[in-house]
């Protein structure tokens, strides 16, 4: 896919995500809008994964540690062909495979169950360590929220990744500066994040997490530094693409009413032109 195609795909995923959250009456739309460009780049340019063989031992591994944005992952997996597109309309319905947080025992393409924050990165460290032990070429990618980085388990994993020289591991932090109830700056300000990762021996890049060209460049093999895990601080906007949601903490898990839905959809449709 060309970067232009990827941008169109991200827009399509945004619209389907918005519709699913609206129809289900629940979801985490702010964090979904902020992570969708990253998910799109990963699934449609970077990851070596095959919907026809989701458990191929040589597949790249991807972990969405900020599991509350599951709906964005489900829509992306559907676009990629891991689950039927029609199934998105079952999101949160009784007995649906698609509950509020991704479940690997039910949804093909999901590698580990997330939802409690601060779990994905340690699991990803184990995946990358397994690849090293097997001399395998596959790569491990993990996306965390920035508020999520307040969990101590992440920093334990960050130290381990450097110790194990996991240059086959990429951590992307969705740095939208907002957590559930407030700004990080008003809660537990871990910014600036890049120097902290660098201090732990990681190779760090800072990018605009909504600029497809920058995302692709940061994820390209050329930016890997031998012996160092790779960290990408993606500067993003919670609710990105929808004016009244953007950078507004109220939209962490608020659901748009009919009028707001119409406006949001109109804005996304206009951006698709």
């Amino acid at each position, binding site marked *: 896919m060309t970067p232009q195609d990827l941008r169109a795909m991200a827009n399509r995923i945004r619209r389907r995500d918005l519709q699913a959250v609206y129809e289900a009456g629940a979801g985490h739309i702010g964090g979904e809008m902020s992570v969708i460009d990253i998910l799109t780049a990963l699934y449609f340019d970077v990851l070596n994964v095959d919907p026809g063989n989701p458990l191929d031992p040589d597949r790249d591994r991807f972990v969405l540690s900020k599991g*509350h944005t599951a709906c964005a992952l489900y829509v992306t997996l559907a676009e990629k062909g891991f689950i039927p597109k029609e199934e998105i309309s079952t999101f949160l319905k009784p007995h649906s495979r698609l509950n*509020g947080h991704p479940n690997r025992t039910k949804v093909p393409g999901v590698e580990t169950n997330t*939802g409690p924050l601060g779990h994905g990165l340690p699991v990803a460290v184990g995946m990358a360590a397994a690849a090293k032990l097997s001399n395998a070429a596959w790569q491990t990618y993990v996306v965390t929220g920035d508020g999520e980085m307040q969990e101590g388990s992440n920093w334990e994993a960050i130290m381990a990744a450097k110790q194990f020289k996991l240059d086959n591991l990429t951590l992307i932090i969705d740095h939208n500066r907002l957590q*559930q109830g407030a700004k990080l700056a008003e809660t*537990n300000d871990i910014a600036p994040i890049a120097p902290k990762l660098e201090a732990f021996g990681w190779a760090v890049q800072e990018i605009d997490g909504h600029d497809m060209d920058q995302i692709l460049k940061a994820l390209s093999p050329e930016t890997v530094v031998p012996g160092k895990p790779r960290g990408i601080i993606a500067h993003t906007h919670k609710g990105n693409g929808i004016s009244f949601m953007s950078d507004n903490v109220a939209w962490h898990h608020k659901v748009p009413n009919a009028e707001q839905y119409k406006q949001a959809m109109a804005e996304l449709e206009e951006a698709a032109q």
Partner: protein
Amino acid sequence: MNAVTEAVKLHDCRDAFTATLEAMAADDPRIVAVCNDSVGSSKLNQFRDRFPDRLVNVGIAEQNMIGVSAGLANGGKIPFVCGAACFLTGRGLEQIKADIAYSDANVKLVGISAGMAYGELGPTHHSTEDFAWIRAIPNIAVVAPCDNIETAAAIAFAAEYTGPIFLRLSRVGVPQLLPDDHRFELGKADTLRNGSDVTIIANGVLTHRALDAAELLAARGIEARVLNMATVRPIDEAAIVSAAEETGAILTCEEHTTFGGLGSAVAEVVVDMAPVPMKRLGVPGIFPPTGSENFLLDEFGMSPDGIAEAAARLMQRKA
């Protein structure tokens, strides 16, 4: 009063919690609230506005939250730690054991949205192991109030009580069951309905369903005793033994796995002191499918009908 059909005012027990906490904090400067980015979900907005210095928000860091609370208690404060019950108990469990219970720190743990209140958010967000986890730890009381009145009374009790306590609250609206002047007594069950054919023991949201079930049973000529057993530890042994001796069969209902919770605590007493037939209703040891709290409770046989049916079947096993 408990007819299934009657429309009644529903209370979010979090409101009773924060109203009581604020009232106490106004009188007692030792009271502080501690949370994990959970100001909104714990309804602490007004507490924060009134007592900005006394809201300690550690961010998304539950282990730290529990440790910090132990330190605050050591420094003479009375911390009420408020967060989603699943993360507060699961993530902070070793801190709860070592820093709070074993160290006998005067910390009040308030698990919000416990049980399956988070419904469709799924098993990661359900708190259906917390009775078992915390009950297995010495020196910490475990309490699950059933309505707004009991919530307020238990919170007030917790502030006066010296020692560790875990309070388990829901977010789901419930009608008021107990009288306005109800006083909470730790380790004392309330008999909400008298009967001699069978006893139904429940707490939290399930107390309401148990009472509805008792009405259905009464229509079939079965008189069920209903005990609201808010305190899971220390358990009310006397009430359980009386129920066993006087009604000959005990059914428990809980918004928790059937492994190690209220039903298990009751069964321990029954087995040791007064063996009678028992049936334990709860989450049957599985990760629940997608669904709302009410959907899942019904699914697991805890609709009023399901509870009544289980009680009737249990009675057939009476000697």
